[in-house]
């Protein structure tokens, strides 16, 4: 990027690249650019794109560069002055790459993909791109329902990227044309090429069928411990969302909370060994100088050798390296592991107010678990608690909302039971709207309406106002749009395109999200959003039925029925629940 442009934008260090620890790249025979449809600080905190870049760079002849979405100030300048978006390391225009790989981490980033293609001078729709343009690939968790992006993406990779991305890189070097590559890529597990699959719709708008006989199986990495993992981590030029070294302790989750997509699509649970993790951690910390190490997974508290791992890390890392354990669930929270410093606020996610509703969602926590966890936290000096809840879960009643207030009362009582806890306890309650997601037992559920959300918020606020507790809830329109994009079919692509044309991008940033424009987009392309937020029929063909994540639909239906009976299934650790993944992987539980 030219200096004269950099001088005119906020945080220019987002665009200079050359971070300490970033690989020194040379153009290869196959040039790939991993693209993250969000700003530098978010992208640099993401582990998956580091893994993909690392595995591709390890393929002989292949090079993986990076590009992140320029903030709107730079985007405006590029558009106005006709400067094409370029990669961070080789400073090469994106359109000169062989392939661009977008990571789909959250649905609200979809318009930002179009924004990046647009800035790169690449036609947005795949049918408008000839051989002269790069192949546009996408992967990541949201790729389990690729259909809303089917008009824009040439090739999706569903599932684990370690092996599949290397195979694609090698294959691309053998192929002479885009069409040859796309045809042959279909033999790689996890690959979905939308141009080779047709979808038929019924008159009522539901799907009649797909032109493929077998669904696309996701790519499945069987040996996580032996898998490639980057041995160095680039140090971001400017402070990022997570400024720390990160190891991936486990992939998948034993729990199976019925609303949680990650809990199903990342199955089976695969863990790395203590030795491997310790080596990876030491290498990253030494090479980066980070003073914090993140132990990532969906539920690190469930890692079978957590105590052993923490002991090993403390023994081998510099003594002042702070361990951070995200996504600790309430019941696996163990005071012993809490870091000595930074005792400020602890985040718990009970998700629902009553035990009944927690049973409905298979969030296997009891009041005693909560109490034990909290007492340990308070004894360790925590004086702030953040509680996360969801509104609009299936079977929710007023009683469930009111019970949230009881939880707050009980927490205060637990806190004040020990007079030595002198500082006032801060409690904040955060509520989001339930979003039904593909491949969960709740994938057929409807999403509640704005009026219902308002009623619930009012009820909660009226009960909690007097109790020195902050209450916040997220924008309904944003949750609604996320629901539509998550469960959308190919027709939703038209909405995404129109929304982008109307100026929507960075929709995940609340101050940039413009519900009015989105609603206009639906109307202008004649797509009814309530079609996607309604309750779906169990016998209906779902847009994501063309993908197989190895979790049986029959299992999901069984789980849905159990949810209505408020029956807990529990963690895989208590025995195999027969979700289907056992047919392709020997889960050792």
């Amino acid at each position, binding site marked *: 990027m030219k200096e004269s442009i*950099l*001088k005119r934008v906020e945080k220019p*260090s987002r665009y*200079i*690249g050359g971070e300490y620890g970033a690989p020194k790249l040379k153009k290869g025979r196959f040039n790939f650019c991993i693209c993250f449809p969000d700003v530098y600080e978010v992208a640099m905190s993401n582990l998956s794109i580091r893994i993909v870049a690392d595995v591709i760079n390890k393929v002989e002849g292949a090079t993986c560069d990076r590009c992140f979405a320029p903030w709107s100030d730079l985007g405006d300048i590029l558009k106005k002055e006709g400067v094409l978006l370029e990669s961070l390391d080789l400073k090469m225009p994106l359109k000169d790459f062989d392939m661009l790989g977008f990571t789909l981490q959250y649905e609200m980033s979809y318009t930002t993909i179009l924004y990046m293609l647009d800035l790169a001078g690449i036609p947005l729709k795949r049918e408008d791109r000839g051989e002269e343009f790069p192949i546009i690939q996408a992967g990541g968790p949201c790729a389990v329902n690729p259909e809303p992006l089917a008009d824009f993406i040439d090739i999706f990779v569903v599932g684990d990227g370690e092996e599949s991305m290397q195979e694609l890189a090698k294959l691309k070097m053998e192929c002479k044309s885009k069409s040859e590559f796309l045809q042959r890529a279909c033999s790689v597990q996890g690959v979905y090429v939308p141009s080779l699959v047709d979808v038929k719709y019924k008159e009522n708008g539901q799907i009649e069928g797909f032109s493929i006989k077998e669904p696309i199986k996701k790519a499945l990495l069987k040996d996580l411990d032996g898998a490639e993992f980057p041995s160095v981590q680039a*140090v971001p030029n400017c*402070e990022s969302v997570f400024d720390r070294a990160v190891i991936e302790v486990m992939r998948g989750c034993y729990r199976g909370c019925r609303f949680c997509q990650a809990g199903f699509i990342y199955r089976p649970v695969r863990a790395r060994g203590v030795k491997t993790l310790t080596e990876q951690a030491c290498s990253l910390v030494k090479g*980066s100088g*980070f003073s914090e190490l993140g132990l990532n997974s969906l539920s690190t508290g469930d890692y079978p050798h957590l105590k052993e791992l923490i002991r090993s890390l403390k023994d081998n890392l510099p003594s002042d390296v702070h361990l951070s354990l995200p996504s600790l669930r309430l019941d696996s929270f163990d005071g012993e592991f809490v870091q000595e410093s930074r005792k400020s606020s602890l985040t718990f996610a009970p998700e629902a107010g009553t035990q009944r509703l927690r049973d409905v969602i298979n969030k296997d926590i009891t009041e005693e678990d909560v109490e034990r966890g909290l007492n340990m936290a308070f004894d360790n000096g925590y004086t702030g608690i953040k509680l996360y809840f969801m509104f609009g879960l299936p079977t929710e009643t007023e009683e469930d909302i009111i019970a949230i207030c009881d939880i707050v009362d009980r927490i205060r009582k637990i806190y004040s039971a020990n007079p030595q806890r002198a500082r006032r306890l801060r409690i904040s309650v955060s509520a989001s709207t339930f979003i039904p997601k593909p491949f969960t037992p709740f994938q057929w559920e409807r999403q509640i309406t704005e009026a219902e959300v308002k009623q619930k918020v009012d009820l909660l606020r009226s009960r909690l106002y007097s109790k020195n507790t902050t209450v916040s809830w997220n924008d309904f329109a944003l949750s609604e749009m996320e629901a539509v994009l998550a469960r959308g079919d190919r027709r939703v692509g038209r909405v995404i395109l129109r929304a982008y044309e109307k100026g929507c991008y960075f929709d995940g940033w609340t101050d940039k999200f413009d519900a009015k424009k989105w609603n206009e987009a639906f109307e202008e392309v004649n797509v009814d959003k309530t079609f996607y937020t309604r309750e779906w029929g169990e016998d209906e063909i779902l847009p994501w039925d063309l993908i197989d994540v190895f979790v049986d639909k029959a299992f999901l239906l069984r789980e849905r029925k159990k949810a209505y009976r408020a029956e807990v299934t529990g963690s895989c650790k208590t025995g195999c629940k027969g979700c289907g993944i056992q047919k392709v992987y020997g889960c050792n539980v």
Partner: protein
Amino acid sequence: MILFKFTKTGGAEFLAHLDILRHIGRTMRRAGVKVAFSQGFNPHMLVYMSAPMGIGIPSLAEYCQIDTDEPPESFIEKFNEFAPNGLTCVGAWTTQGKVGVASDIVKAEYTVKGINKFDVSDLLQRQEFIITTKDGREKNVRELIYSAEWEGDILRAVIGFGNGLRIEKFTDKLLELYGGNEVVATKTRGLNKDGKDFEDGIK
């Protein structure tokens, strides 16, 4: 304690002040240089930097002090092996206690390219050099302009530092008075009140 001087070029001029502080801390950790930590609730490395400059101005003379017993020679070597691109240590000295890296560098020398050639005596004889501050006030900063001379097409000037005249404001005003295009300024020296290089003033 060690005082060191480093350059900020080749892209590093776009790093923000606080980010450079973080990068120096991480450089120390990577290099295995032992640095003292502050006491208290959130211990942090004892690193002191000279006053911040506008983002995007390359510099050949940034100063920083670190509480470490590392000898100057090995400090320079380790710093340069482990620092991010564009940050290069060009000198280091052991000091007895803290020196005023933030307070005692009150002048700086810059080279400026891109201003149309003008008669420096016109500039130096002026009674007024009015700039507009961030909050829109007009301010006469003539007394913060100490010297200016031409070296070919490059203007070498010493102006105040950290006390009310930013280099961008200075070059903007020159541009307004004398014209020019694609102005590029580089900080070349950090000076104390006597006009000496900061490190010479404390030795």
